[in-house]
């Protein structure tokens, strides 16, 4: 498939997915009323409330989180030269999980900041801290070793994981339930202030990452090969790690751990249009948004009026798909 064809298809699919996500839910809304509410002219106050304060912010937040997770996954896979890499490999998810648990167990009385709960702030701080530690561990005078980063990510992940377990050990039943729900990931906490925060991060990341596409392509050849092609490898690596940490960190902060979007989406896009990052990065962002919107809509429908955590659903659908990718990887040129 030509990259441009896929980009056009996804650009058309995104507004459609947003609309479906707003229309469908525990209560199916009449399309005419939704359009009226979206442009602020509805006369049904209850419907207007649902659309403007519940469905619309949730749909936009879902699209932003899906886009961020997928585009950061694509960038990480390029940086690590490993099509199976995932942002969680450098400790973001484990660190965020520990930070969130910490906030849930000890932060009971404290309130959050600017629409973000303390749990979200804890998750963001934990995720970012984990990445900084991993990056420091893997960096010396000779530069950053990507292999060491992966291993340091495993080590930091183990430390963060044991910290989370320790916190769970001391947590009350109520806290335990909140921790485990957070970990499953969900977008039910969406509101406009959150959308604004994630949108600000997304604008930076979606603005800067595509400019790294040529450097990422060169990096796939190898680090010294990229350097010989004139790429300032260490600066690019630092930039990519920071962007991915911020992108995944903020996503995890507002939506919990949503598994497999960062891994599976770039993978599927690569199968369709090849590994050239000039097409891969924007297409992954769009596809991530569309797919997470679809997953979240499904999560809200299957056991309505209550809803499944979307992270549970992405893991449930993503993992088998990923296994099938692993088994068929040779068919599309992976080793």
């Amino acid at each position: 498939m030509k990259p441009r064809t896929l980009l056009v298809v996804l650009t058309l699919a995104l507004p459609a997915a947003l609309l479906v996500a707003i229309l469908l839910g525990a209560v199916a809304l009449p399309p005419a009323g939704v359009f009226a509410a979206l442009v602020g002219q509805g006369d049904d106050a209850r419907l207007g409330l649902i659309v403007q304060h519940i469905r619309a912010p949730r749909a936009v937040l879902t699209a932003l989180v899906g886009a961020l997770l997928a585009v950061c996954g694509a960038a990480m896979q390029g940086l690590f030269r490993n099509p199976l890499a995932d942002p969680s490999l450098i400790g973001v998810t484990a660190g965020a999980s520990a930070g969130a648990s910490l906030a849930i167990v000890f932060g009971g009385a404290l309130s959050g900041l600017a629409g973000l709960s303390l749990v979200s702030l804890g998750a963001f701080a934990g995720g970012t801290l984990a990445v900084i530690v991993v990056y420091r561990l893997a960096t010396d005078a000779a530069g950053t070793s990507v292999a060491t980063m992966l291993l340091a990510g495993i080590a930091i992940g183990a430390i963060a994981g044991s910290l989370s377990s320790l916190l769970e050990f001391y947590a009350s039943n109520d806290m335990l339930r909140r921790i485990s729900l957070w970990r499953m990931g969900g977008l039910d906490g969406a509101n406009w202030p959150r959308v604004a925060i994630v949108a600000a991060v997304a604008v930076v990341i979606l603005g800067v990452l595509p400019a790294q596409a040529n450097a990422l392509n060169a990096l796939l050849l190898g680090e010294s090969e990229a350097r010989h092609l004139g790429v300032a490898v260490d600066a690019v690596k630092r930039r990519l790690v920071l962007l991915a940490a911020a992108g995944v960190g903020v996503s995890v902060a507002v939506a919990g751990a949503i598994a497999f979007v960062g891994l599976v989406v770039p993978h599927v896009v690569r199968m369709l249009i090849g590994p050239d990052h000039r097409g891969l990065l924007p297409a992954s962002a769009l596809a991530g948004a569309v797919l997470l919107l679809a997953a979240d809509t499904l999560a809200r429908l299957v056991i309505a009026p209550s809803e499944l955590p979307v992270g549970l659903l992405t893991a449930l659908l993503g993992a088998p798909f990923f296994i099938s990718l692993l088994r068929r990887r040779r068919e599309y040129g992976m080793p």
Partner: protein
Amino acid sequence: MLEVADVDVARGGRTLLRGLSFHLAAGERLAVIGPNGAGKSSLLHTLIGDHAPARGDIRVGGRPLTALGDRERACRLALLPQASTLDFPFTVDEVVALGRTPHASGAVADRAVIEAVCAATDIDHLRRRLYPRLSGGEKQRVQLARVLAQIWRPEDAGERLLLLDEPVAALDIGHQALVMDRIAAFAAGGAAVVVVLHDISLAARHADRMLALRDGAAVAQGVPADVVTVDTMRRLFDADACVMTHPRTHTPVVLHG
């Protein structure tokens, strides 16, 4: 265009190169020979700026190597490494096109360069194939095409230096001869070439000058007939070799003792 003066290189407490001096004019091909671990690859990596010399001076086109920015260095110097792994399913065409990364010469000029280097390395028929699925020899020719694409046009950078680490190791003898001939033609277009070769007879046939390295130091350097001698082979490899003259090319040929 390349001047190396009394260069020492050390890394991790080990001396890789010691007291190395040579110079290379545009259009010249220098073959580097020597036993495993002699510092041949280290020399190439030093010449492209990966290893900073502990002592001595490297100049490219009269300017210190370190004075060249990343981009300018990439437009003038290209290195074909001994092995590189690329696991992502790029097509051959895309891999070759990566060689144009440092240039802003435009899509039309880049296309023309890619056409030319693919023809020169005999990979035209592979261009739509996925790189990870090629054979070892095919991959080597694609990588060679990529580094040629990087410094192919004299109008991108006047003084160009091509560094090749065993470019024919995985090739059949037909492609070995083809690739060596194309490298000669490329050099004749005004570029200097430093090529590490294991096949000493091939090196003697296709180089203007040779540099024999052992333990990071030059054992001999000069025209092939002066370097490829029974005595030098013994000092390089601790092996008895028989050196003859090729009946047609009149270059030295090494036979196992």
